[in-house]
């Protein structure tokens, strides 16, 4: 709570010496600016703290870096369900969280939602290999359904708290299995069905510490890493199993 109040204080304190802040319809600061995935990483809490020029609705769009995924479809083979066709899908964000002060459909027209990429099932995604329109559409629908089911794409109209029609804080919970890369945070201020202010910020997600070293070693020197680690596993097994017996 004190951290929050400090954030509020900082934002309001930052605004005071600059009376011209009111000229800017929207000021936002995502915090933290970098998410480090370390040994005990179970996900991260991200905040967007900001100020707006007056009453209105807010939309925050959090989008992860683009991700390549393979979709597979199970088919029935006799009595068994087995893996059938697979397709690669590229170009869509790994994660798409839409936060708003009210359901987005009720504050923006579909055209405006499409313009700003605010439709969960409207982000561009390429289907490889090129399939006929209706076949590609089935895969695209499945892609969005799975992303929503797994919690990587979702809309929440309760995560933004507004104080006195001026200041706001949005709480965003990121899962543990985050795609590495740059995430964008777009904030839109909506007044009378029109976008009145629009800011874009970003933050980075990266592996750090021992996680980063292990990943780098496993990918940059795969054979040496495999050899040394397997040897280490054998030595550990030997020490733990054999030595206690020897002492008896």
């Amino acid at each position, binding site marked *: 709570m004190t951290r929050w109040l400090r954030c509020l204080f900082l934002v309001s304190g930052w605004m005071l010496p600059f009376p011209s802040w009111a000229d800017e319809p929207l000021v936002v600061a995502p915090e933290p600016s970098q998410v480090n995935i370390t040994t005990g990483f179970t*996900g991260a809490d991200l905040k967007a703290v900001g100020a707006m020029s007056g009453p209105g609705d807010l939309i925050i769009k959090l989008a992860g870096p683009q991700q390549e995924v393979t979709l597979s479809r199970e088919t029935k083979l006799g009595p068994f*369900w087995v893996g059938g066709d*697979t397709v690669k899908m590229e170009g869509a964000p790994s994660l798409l969280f839409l936060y708003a002060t009210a359901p987005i459909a009720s504050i923006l027209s579909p055209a405006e939602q499409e313009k700003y990429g605010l439709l969960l099932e409207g982000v561009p995604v390429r289907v490889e290999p090129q399939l006929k329109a209706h076949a590609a559409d089935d895969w695209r629908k*499945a892609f969005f359904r*799975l*992303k929503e089911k797994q919690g990587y794409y979702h809309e929440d109209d309760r995560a933004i708290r507004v104080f006195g029609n001026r200041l706001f804080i949005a709480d965003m919970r990121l899962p543990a299995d985050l795609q590495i890369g740059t995430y964008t945070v777009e904030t839109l201020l909506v007044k009378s069905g029109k976008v009145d202010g629009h800011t874009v910020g970003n933050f980075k997600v990266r592996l750090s510490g021992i996680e980063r070293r292990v990943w780098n070693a496993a990918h940059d020197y795969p054979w040496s890493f*495999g050899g040394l*680690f397997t040897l280490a*596993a054998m030595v550990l*097994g030997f020490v733990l199993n054999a030595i206690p017996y020897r002492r008896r």
Partner: protein
Amino acid sequence: MELFLPIAHMDVNIVLILLYGALVGFLSGLVGVGGGFLITPLLIFTGVPPIVAVSSGAAQMAGTASGASYLHWRQGNIDFKMGLILLIGSWLGGGFGVYLAKVLLRLGQFGNVVVFLYVILLGFIGVSMLIESLQAVFRAGAPHAGDTHAMAASKSLLRTWGERLPWQTAFPASGVRMSAAGPLVLGATVGILTSLMGVGGGFIMVPVMIYVLKMPTKNVVGTSLFQLLFTTAAVSVMQAGVNHSVDPFLALILILGSVLGTKLGARLGARLPAEKLRLILALVVVAVAVKMVVTLVVPPSDIYDMTVEVR
């Protein structure tokens, strides 16, 4: 207590993985199998990608088998000549299996092949063991004359077939003479299974060595462990080299768990009669097979599935 796995790219509960390791180690100590046939499905059920589960399982078995092999070597239970031929076979099979895994991964069929191989192998071995151990428990080991006759007939058939093969070699440590092609083919089969399924193949290797190669039981366990150690170690290195799929944190936690479990299992195993131990193993194997058959037969909640290529 959560730990982020850098290669599997997910967080897992350390206690849960330790328990998996301990369960496998417990069974290994109790009935003398490597336990790879259990660890891979357990990890897959937890959400670990199949290729990471298989590869890290191989690394874990190399670790667990090293201590046990050392003990058997000190007791003179390893037939090195036999072990070496099995090993050459399993390395060839293992190398082929790793590339097969890569091709299957590219085709998106890796999960399918692993699941089917498991069901067929676990089902066959589990049911055979269950029948054999139930008969042993209820008849207190008294074999029927008909069974003995049939077994002797099949054994003599195998012997005649085996004697016609080339490269007849003596194995003095085990006191047997046979074609080197036998252990070579057995090793290659087990090597492919290790690469594709992360199993050491003990549950295939041990019965074949006892019933087909006719080695003395004490040499079977030591030689099987010796072969298991080097096969799983080679597969672990190859999986890391080709598929970048060995997660060191996952393998280390499994090794720690399995060491604890092995000691508990060995202590309990010393007190239980052999046929009851085999019955326990058979029940576990059948249970895993049934669980996998259910996942194959029951319609999936969503026919589509998504795999992330690179994190």
